[in-house]
Structures are given as structure tokens and as C-alpha cells.
């Protein structure tokens, strides 16, 4: 039984079996860098004071910016809609810029420059007990007409600027 061919075929069979069984393991990544899905970003009253066009960068690690638009408060995703690179806020240009292929998004998240085919996704924002909660599990896509949804933005009076 202990012929060279026997040993060879046994090794091949075992190796093949381990290899096939290993494929699902290979497909599952070692690191899951999922951002926290539910983030309490603070008092709504505090955000109501902020001047228009302010970009809050404190939650970039969690994957979103908080932007004060004339109509209200939105949480914009930080990943480019072209190939998912992490964007940078360029306050001089007033644009979110992609370092990979040159896409640029305006304050509202609309794709203006470069190859990005669709606007930035807006994360769900709700107000509970006067605090603003961002929920990354629900995203609103402008190109699908979802920005009209009530939870895509916390409506604020435009008079906050004045």
C-alpha cells in the first residue's frame, strides 16, 4: 500500500480537500472595519446655532460628515461613489475631493467633478429627546429620488444664519 503513487494520491486528496474547505474562509475578510452604525452626534440645539455650510469632521472615522445645509442637517457618507475611496473635505474649494480619481462633490453631496456617477449617500438622521442620531444602516441615494425622504435630513429653519 505504501507505494509512491499511494502516498502521492493521498496527499493530493487531503490537500485538495483542505483547499476546497479553505475557500469560504478565504472569502471572509480578517478585518471588519464596519463603522458604528448608530451614533449620537449631540444636541440638535447646538447644531441649530452652526452657520450655514459648516462641515463637521469629527465623525469621519465613523464614515460620515455632518453638514449644515440651508434646509437642514445631513450626514454625508465619506466614501466616493465612484470606487469607494475615502474623500477629503477641501474647505478652500468647498468641495469633498477624492484623492484617487479626482471626483469632487459639493456641500449637498452632489457629484460635480470627475468620474463619480452619483451623489454621495446620505445616512439616516433622526432626533430623539433633542439629540441627533445618525444611523448608517439606512442610506438615501439621491439618484433614486430618495433625498425627499423625511429621515434623510433634519429640517432646520434657514433663519439660523441671520
Amino acid at each position: 500500500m505504501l507505494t509512491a503513487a499511494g502516498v502521492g494520491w493521498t496527499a493530493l486528496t487531503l490537500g485538495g480537500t483542505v483547499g476546497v474547505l479553505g475557500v469560504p474562509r478565504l472569502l471572509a475578510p480578517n478585518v471588519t472595519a464596519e463603522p458604528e452604525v448608530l451614533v449620537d452626534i449631540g444636541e440638535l440645539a447646538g447644531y441649530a446655532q452652526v452657520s450655514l455650510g459648516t462641515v463637521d469632521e469629527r465623525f469621519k472615522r465613523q464614515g460620515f460628515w455632518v453638514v449644515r445645509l440651508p434646509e437642514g442637517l445631513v450626514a454625508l457618507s465619506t466614501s466616493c461613489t465612484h470606487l469607494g475611496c475615502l474623500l477629503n473635505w477641501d474647505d478652500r474649494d468647498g468641495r469633498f475631493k477624492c484623492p484617487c480619481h479626482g471626483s469632487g462633490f459639493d456641500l449637498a453631496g452632489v457629484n460635480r467633478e470627475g468620474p463619480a456617477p452619483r451623489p454621495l449617500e446620505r445616512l439616516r438622521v433622526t432626533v430623539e429627546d433633542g439629540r441627533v442620531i445618525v444611523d448608517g444602516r439606512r442610506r438615501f441615494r439621491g439618484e433614486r429620488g430618495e433625498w425627499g425622504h423625511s429621515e434623510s435630513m433634519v429640517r432646520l429653519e434657514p433663519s439660523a444664519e441671520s
Partner: protein
Amino acid sequence: MIAEAWTIDSLREGSNWLAHPARVMTICAIGLVAGLWWYRVWTRPRWAALLLGGLLAVVTLAGLDPVLRDKVCRPDNLAILLLVLLLCFFVWRGLRQAAVNDDRAERGEPPFEAGADDKVLTWPHLVFLELVALVACSAFLVIWSLLVRAPLEPPADLETVLNPAKAPWYFVGLQELLVYFDPWLAGVVLPVVMVVGLSALPYLDRNPRGSGYYTLRERPLAVSVFLAAFILLWMLPILVGTFLRGPNWTLYGPFEPWDPHTESPAELVNLSAMVWGERSEMEAGFGAEAALWRPVVRELPGIVLLGFYFLVMPWVLSRTAWRGLRERMGSVRYLVFSVLLMGMGLVPAKMLLRWLLDVRYIVALTEWSLNI
């Protein structure tokens, strides 16, 4: 002195202006056509040496500029410099041999390669040469890796990404392609079409001439299409992506420092928005409940344009300029060939649309993540 400084500054500014990809590609395309047209003249050793000397002189002079030197002399870029030199050498070598053979063919002589009876046995002649090449290449790589530091970058961070974030040099061309196309098109479809197209070549091109010897006169289409694709669509994007793209992947001239505060690039619009008139892109999207055909109707101009490009143009060409080609190849071969060639032509065509008309996508079925 003042006059000299003025001359050098205007030279720098002129080079920066010329270095826009649209102009670089036009210049290279004209150079390629001229090089193929007068290939018997410039490939003569005396002319070629003059051209090489001129090229090296220009590169040396340009290298005196600290800004450009800083961009070019990065460890990762040495391979690209080597690549440019090798590309020049092998294009010259191929066309030189083609010129020699085409001259011989006109005099009724057999090609240069046919005359020499230089067949030798694989073992030991070829295998020995391969061993020498292997040792020499290994030694070269070892010395290179000892002399030049590996271009490693800081550890990954969730909050910051290198700006610009550049691919390894051999993928910069693909990254540059991604500037003009949707990821699935530039990253998946186009590379697959390239591989399939290259694999299909022996079945499409059954012309026995030019087999085993260099020639241009006997196969002008094959040689020029290959050189155009390789130089203009593969090598040039690598050079543009490496040397002309700075922070935020913005275009910078070779003598412009990579200062992140430059003016914003142009705002782009989809072809459909140009045809139907400007409108807020936020409202451009249809909701999930909207009928499926509505985005298709919106993108009809681009779909018609692409249909004309891929279907009508090959048909018109087969009746006019390429009548002989279609007859020689047969209908099926001609169909495959023309669709592949049109697919290749889509790349510079899309680049031109972007540069000249600020078009983002010809067909933008964003609702279905399908953009061309």
C-alpha cells in the same frame, strides 16, 4: 540675464500648457503617424542617434528644474524611466528592421531574417543563454534593490488617505483610465476585452505575410493599430498618471509644484443633461416607484450615439474604406474585428468628449449603476 530668465520661464509655462493630456495625446498621435509614414528615414542609425541625443538633451535640461526632478526621481519612477528608454529602443529596432526588409522586398530580395541559416539546438545553446540572462537579471535586481529604497508608505489609517493615492506604476495607466470611465467598465470590461481581443488576434488575422520577419509595408494596419494602442492607450496614461497628476488627482504641468491649492477642475455634465437642458442633478433621479423605461428614455441620446458608433460605423466602413478588408476577412471575422476596434477607439473618444465638452457619461443609467 533678464532676457534669459524670461526665456526659461516662458519655456516652462509653454511646457506646462502643452502637458495637458489632450495636447500630449494629440502630439504623440501626430508623432506616431509621422514616424510610421517616414519610417525608412528616421530609423537610419545616423538619424536615430540624432533623435536619441536630442531626447536625452531635452530630458537632461528639463531635469535641471528642481520641481520636475523631485517628481521624476522618486524610487518608484525609475522603472518608468527604464520603460520609456526600452520602448523607444524597441520601436526603433522593429521599424528599422521593417525598413530594411521592405527595401529588400522592393528589390525582389528575401527578407533579412530569411537569409541567415542560424538554426541551432535548444540544448545547450538556448538554455545556456537563458541561464546567463537569468543570472544577469537577478544581479541587476539585487543591486537595484540595494541601491534604491522601496517606496513604502505609512500604515493604513481609516481617517487619512494619501493624496494623491497612486497605484503601483504598472497600474497607473488603468487608474488614469478610471478617471474617464465607470469602475466596472474601466476595471473589468475593458481589461477583459483587451485580453479577449489579444487572444483573438491569431484567429482574426490569418495573413501569412510578415510571419518570422519584420515588415511594415506588408501589414500597415496591424502594426499601426498595435503601436497606437500600446503607446497612446497604455504607455501614455502611465506617464500622465505618474508625472502629471497631483493632489486630488488634478492635472499639473511638469514644472508646476504639487501645491494642493489650485483651481478646481471643470464641472462635468452627462450627455443627457446637455441634450435635455440643465437641471438640478438631485432631481435628475427617478424614485424606486418610477417606471423602468424612464431612465432609458432620458439616456436615449447617448444610447443612439453608441449604437451608431458600434453598429452603423463599421457597416459604413465595410462599404467604403474597408471594403477590401471585409472581403478578405469574411463577414464574421470583420464583425468581431470591427467591434473590438471600435471598443478600443471608445477610450480616446470618451477622453476627447471629457476634455472638449466636459461630458461625464455618454449613457448614465445611474439608477442601475450602468454608466458608459
